[in-house]
């Protein structure tokens, strides 16, 4: 490759880049150069365009009109260049484990990324073992990613990003919400990677200023512009500060830091010393065999700020959920103000303010609407709602975003919104689960100012979890938790003293390492010899060979890789798979037996105005058939009208006065049939039945009373032969029709959620930033569903033959080929719907509308396509179910083979690439 010989001046170069979301400007004429091989930190308040910039650099987001971005010596606008460099860029988006697949294990996640980048099995094994050994994940290879703690998720995310030895590593707040120990391990890992790959450029956005201190070069950002750049030392010198928190605040424009002073926590007043707000005694929660919280006890007095610290996954959230009444403790008790917590007690809930760890307000409402809703639900008087909402928005500086939806806002602002919602009703107890994760230092201080004010002035009890040590130091008391147990509970000063450590962080880590000696080893392992690491040259050559393989435009291996991952996900949800398979069989049973064209037991009644023997005989003839059931006679016209209207009768027969006499006299009396026409097809059937019964009766009469009544006037006979189904049974006609119907709907809906779900969960990012192409992505996803659909079609055919006794008369091979093609159509349709929609609701609705409707109505299941009209005819002609129906009925009922059915097969064959092609075209490779 050329790039290795040419000296790289910049790893990343931005020139006059602007980017806006609607009216909001995220990046404003932004220019920046980043030298290769550096560890660069990006700091700034929330919502100043850090994430936007990072996603633009990685190519995950499409650029807008203005500016140029060059990454690794090429223009990121050029699709060709993006394809070329994306194997050299690794990107970890904001949020815990956004690029991971939660149902897959650690091993499988890593394997997936390894396969995507084209490593062979041996290479993957070597890399995975090395990465997991040095991160302490090695012992958790079999654990699903979703079950990992936050810190481990982030480490795994980093491993996945590092697996292909990138030249540029982009980390967007990688340690937000991660405990101090895990954070330290995370940065050790980054350091060791950099040591091995000195050429690698690392760009990190972070909210932790203590972390930023270790970076080589810092970029401070505000409002889409650069405030300052330089090494940490330079920045300290400029701002005359000794720590970055303060330095950063100093860098902000004057109006932004107005009113910001260093926080002091006044001592807890003695007044309410004996009022216990929250008391927990031996609180325990088990999930199956796993003990999440193990006999935790504490007493928190009114007005106290009680901090809860601990590694990720140590049971903090579970404890909080028990305190809010969301979970019922397995053992032990919890009391709020001396009252046991009852799940249904509204009084308790009114006293509580709660903030969950993950954003849990409405993305579909604006900031103002969200707050209005919460204010009202918390029973704030209607007259005060507006004022209170405004007060909160002022306080948390949400005014500029009042009419934006949270979905488009950065994490920090969402957190502020959640906080505002939690305190909007002035609760007596505040339960806050990592409220400041991802919030910038200024906003965090603002928030703490408010917490302190609430606690000291209003006597609000605050129960809070945090990973920031400077926040923990502000708590009156803290409890250190690990693996469900409380390790220690005291004031921060006492804890530091007891361990004789310089800082709370050190004391905390000391406690943790004592409780879990294994955590110490993990760090020491990190420098263990990489099997190939002793020869960096060899590594380099491997990398070169890999780079020079030049990433083919379409790689079967990547398709298989996607297919493998999708199958794994499908298998991890056995309930869904079972529902799909047995659902199909069950539906076939119900519909095969249920849908029928033979109508029996129709109710009818007679208005007999003659009352002669002949008229009674006439009525009896009809009542005697299996088609009709006689109801009590009709009294008069009113009665007839009423009973038809109520739906009691499908048919009313009026026999005129003197019917018998007239008949015998050859005067042709007139019998009237009143048929309920509300359902036309049933009315037609009724008409057909009653007419033939009428004729039958006439012929009988003619035979019996040869002299009196003229013989039948039929001049010719019509002999009807029902082909393919001589007994005119509904079942043999129905069963072959139900199979295509089911095989359209079920695989489509299975596949439909595949892409949208990734969009909602965030893992779609892997499509944006890896060499994966859209067609590989979709084809790979489609394959397992096609397999699945083929399997269920085989079961349906078996069911048709055995339970329904409908034999396959024609070519089984043709049927199977058709089913394979058809499965590709139906799953392709699901993926197509999935490509164009953004929400799971919309895709379900679209798929239902797009499969059930046409398949049932327009494709000849009940009415043949040839007799459809208008748009229905067009849909019927284009829709693959039409052709599958013809093939299915042809093979099942008509004993046909390839020679007769090839046009239909051809139609399916043409549909497949069209459907898949549309899906690929409509899927986006970059975020807008």
């Amino acid at each position, binding site marked *: 490759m050329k790039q290795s010989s040419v000296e790289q001046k910049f790893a990343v170069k931005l020139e006059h880049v602007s980017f806006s979301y609607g009216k909001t400007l995220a990046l404003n004429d932004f220019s920046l150069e980043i030298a290769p091989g550096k560890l660069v930190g990006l700091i700034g308040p929330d919502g100043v365009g850090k994430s936007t910039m990072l996603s633009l650099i990685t190519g995950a987001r499409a650029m807008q009109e203005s500016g140029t971005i060059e990454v690794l010596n090429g223009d990121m606008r050029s699709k060709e260049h993006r394809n070329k460099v994306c194997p050299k860029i690794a990107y970890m988006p904001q949020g815990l484990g956004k690029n991971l697949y939660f149902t897959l294990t650690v091993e499988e996640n890593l394997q997936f990324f390894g396969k995507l980048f084209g490593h062979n099995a041996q290479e993957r094994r070597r890399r995975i073992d090395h990465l997991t050994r040095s991160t302490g994940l090695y012992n958790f290879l079999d654990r699903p990613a979703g079950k990992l703690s936050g810190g481990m998720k982030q480490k795994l995310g980093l491993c996945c990003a590092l697996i292909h030895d990138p030249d540029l590593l982009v980390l967007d707040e990688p340690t937000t919400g991660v405990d101090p120990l895990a954070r330290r391990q995370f940065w050790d890992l980054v350091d060791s990677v950099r040591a091995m790959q000195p050429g690698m450029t690392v760009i990190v956005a972070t909210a932790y200023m203590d972390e930023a201190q270790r970076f080589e070069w810092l970029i401070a950002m505000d409002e889409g512009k650069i405030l300052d750049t330089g090494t940490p030392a330079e920045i300290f010198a400029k701002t005359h500060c000794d720590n970055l928190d303060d330095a950063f605040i100093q860098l902000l424009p004057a109006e932004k830091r107005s009113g910001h002073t260093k926080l002091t926590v006044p001592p807890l007043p003695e007044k309410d010393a004996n009022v216990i707000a929250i008391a927990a005694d031996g609180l325990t929660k088990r999930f199956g065999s796993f003990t999440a919280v193990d006999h935790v006890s504490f007493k928190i007095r009114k007005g106290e700020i009680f901090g809860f610290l601990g590694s990720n996954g140590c049971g903090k959230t579970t404890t909080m959920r028990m305190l809010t009444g969301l979970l019922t403790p397995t053992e032990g008790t919890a009391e709020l103000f001396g009252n046991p917590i009852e799940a249904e007690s509204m009084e308790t809930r009114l006293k509580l303010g709660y903030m969950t760890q993950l954003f849990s307000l409405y993305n579909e409402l604006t900031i103002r609407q969200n707050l209005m809703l919460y204010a009202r639900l918390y029973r704030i008087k209607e007259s005060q709602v507006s004022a209170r909402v405004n007060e909160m928005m002022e306080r948390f500086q949400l005014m500029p975003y009042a009419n934006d939806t949270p979905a488009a806002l950065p994490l920090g602002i969402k957190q502020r919104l959640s906080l505002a919602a939690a305190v909007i009703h002035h609760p007596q107890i505040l339960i806050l689960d990592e409220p400041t994760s991802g919030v910038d230092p200024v906003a965090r201080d603002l928030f703490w100012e408010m917490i302190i004010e609430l606690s000291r002035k209003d006597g609000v009890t605050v129960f809070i979890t945090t990973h920031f040590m400077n926040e923990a130091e502000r708590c009156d008391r803290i409890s250190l938790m690990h693996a469900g147990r409380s390790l220690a509970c005291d004031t921060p000063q006492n804890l530091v003293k007891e361990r004789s450590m310089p800082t709370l962080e050190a004391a905390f880590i000391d406690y943790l390492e004592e409780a879990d000696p294994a955590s110490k080893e993990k760090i020491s392992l990190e420098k263990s010899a990489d099997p190939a690491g002793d020869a960096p040259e060899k590594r380099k050559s491997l990398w070169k060979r890999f780079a020079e393989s030049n990433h083919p435009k379409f790689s079967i291996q990547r398709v298989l890789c996607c297919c493998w991952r999708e199958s794994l996900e499908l298998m991890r949800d056995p309930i869904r798979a079972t529902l799909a398979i047995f659902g199909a069989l069950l539906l076939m049973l119900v519909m095969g037996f249920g849908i029928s064209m033979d109508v029996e037991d129709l109710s009818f009644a007679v208005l007999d105005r003659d009352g002669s023997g002949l008229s009674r005989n006439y009525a009896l003839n009809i009542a005697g058939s299996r088609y009709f059931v006689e109801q009590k006679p009709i009294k008069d016209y009113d009665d007839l009208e009423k009973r038809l209207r109520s739906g009691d009768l499908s048919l009313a027969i009026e026999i005129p006065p003197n019917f018998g006499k007239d008949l015998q006299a050859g005067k042709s009396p007139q019998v009237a049939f*009143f048929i309920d026409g509300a359902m036309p097809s049933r009315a037609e*059937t009724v008409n057909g039945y009653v007419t033939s019964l009428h004729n039958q009766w006439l012929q009988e009469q003619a035979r019996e009373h040869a002299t009196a009544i003229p013989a039948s006037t039929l001049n010719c006979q019509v002999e009807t032969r029902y082909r393919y189904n001589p007994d005119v049974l509904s079942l043999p006609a129905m069963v072959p029709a139900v199979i295509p119907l089911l095989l359209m709907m079920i695989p489509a809906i299975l596949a439909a959620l595949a892409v949208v779900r990734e969009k909602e969960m965030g893992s779609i990012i892997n499509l944006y930033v890896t060499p994966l192409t859209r067609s590989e992505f979709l084809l790979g996803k489609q394959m397992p569903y096609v397999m699945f659909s083929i399997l269920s079609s085989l079961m349906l055919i078996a069911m048709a033959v055995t339970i329904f006794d409908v034999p396959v008369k024609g070519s089984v091979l043709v049927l199977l080929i058709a089913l394979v093609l058809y499965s590709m159509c139906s799953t392709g349709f699901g993926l197509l719907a999935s490509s164009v929609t953004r929400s799971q609701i919309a895709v379900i609705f679209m798929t239902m509308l797009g499969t059930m409707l046409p398949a049932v109505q327009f494709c000849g299941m009940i009415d043949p396509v040839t007799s459809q009209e208008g748009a229905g005819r067009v849909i019927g002609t284009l829709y693959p179910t039409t052709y599958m129906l013809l093939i299915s009925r042809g093979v099942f009922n008509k004993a046909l083979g390839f020679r007769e059915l090839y046009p239909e097969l051809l139609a399916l064959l043409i549909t497949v690439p069209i459907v898949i092609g549309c899906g690929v075209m409509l899927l986006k490779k970059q975020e807008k």
Partner: protein
Amino acid sequence: MMQTLKNIFFLGVKELRGLFRDYMLLILIVYSFSLGIYITGNATNDTITNAAIAIVDEDHSQLSERLFDAFFPPMFRHADEIKLEEIDPAMDAGKYTFVLVIPSEFEKDVLAGRTPTIQLNIDATRMSQAFSGGGYIQQIINKEVTSYLKSSTPAALPVETVVRNRYNANLTQSWFKAVMQLVSNITMLAIILTGAALIRERENGTLEHLLVMPVTAFEIMFSKVWSMLLVVLVASIISLVVVIMQMMHVPVNGSVWLFGCGVALHLFAVTSLGIFLACVAQNMPQLGMLLILVLLPMQMLSGGSTPMESMPVWVQNVMQVAPTTHFVEFCQAILFRGAGIEVVWKPFLKLFIIGAVLFAFSLRRFRRSVAS
């Protein structure tokens, strides 16, 4: 009490706001209540429309020629003449639903009163056409032959019959199809909107948050019911009046208001069903599967596509539990037969009971399904 109503109201407004932000969903809703119904309704006019027919004429007489002309649109396509050996391949390929074989000497035999036989081949895989087409063709042939013989034989029948199709004199299929499509879309939409919305709230954690607030599960559930009920109710009434009555000229005999009440009851039942399914399913893909399992039989076996009477008794009994069965029943009664409340109170009551039972059952599961 007041607070409960307020909570239900505000939470419902939140649902509506959320819905109006999902443009794709809105487009789909508008489509399903306008074009979706129009297309389906107009796709088939009568049971027998444009039926494909062919005749093998071995007689080549005046009478047999007349039979060719006896089949004409809109019921039949003009009859093609084919040869005897072409019957099998043509029918195998599904080219014709009906093939008549007129034997040689047909006319002669008719004139001689020997009652010759015409063979009628029907493709029995063609469901509805096959099952009702035979009778029609028989009638047409008889009429044609009789009128051919009119000069020689008197046509008086011993008993004449008058058929009066009430409520839909010409048995126009589109009337029924359009209304049934409306029924089907109302049901599908209501279940998906509530069910999927609930799962989404659970997956996003917003539901859990609500349960920590002074809001009861009842209020949360009921807010979803009324908001989605309102949306679908308004859409369906507009659809009935504008699309079905104005554009498609379907004469509606009954009271639109009574129909509206019925739709509201039905919606109560199906939105409750949606919530129930969401409480049972653990995630969206599972809900998707459950939806098919429930919706498909509910649509196909409600009596809207094939008559209820034709189903086996056990299916009829099972379908009593499905809201659509009662919906279809009162729809036909009100819209076509012009029935009043004295007739439809029974399905109304059943719908309410189904809804109440499902709602109560979901209420019991609700908390558990959220906390787990």
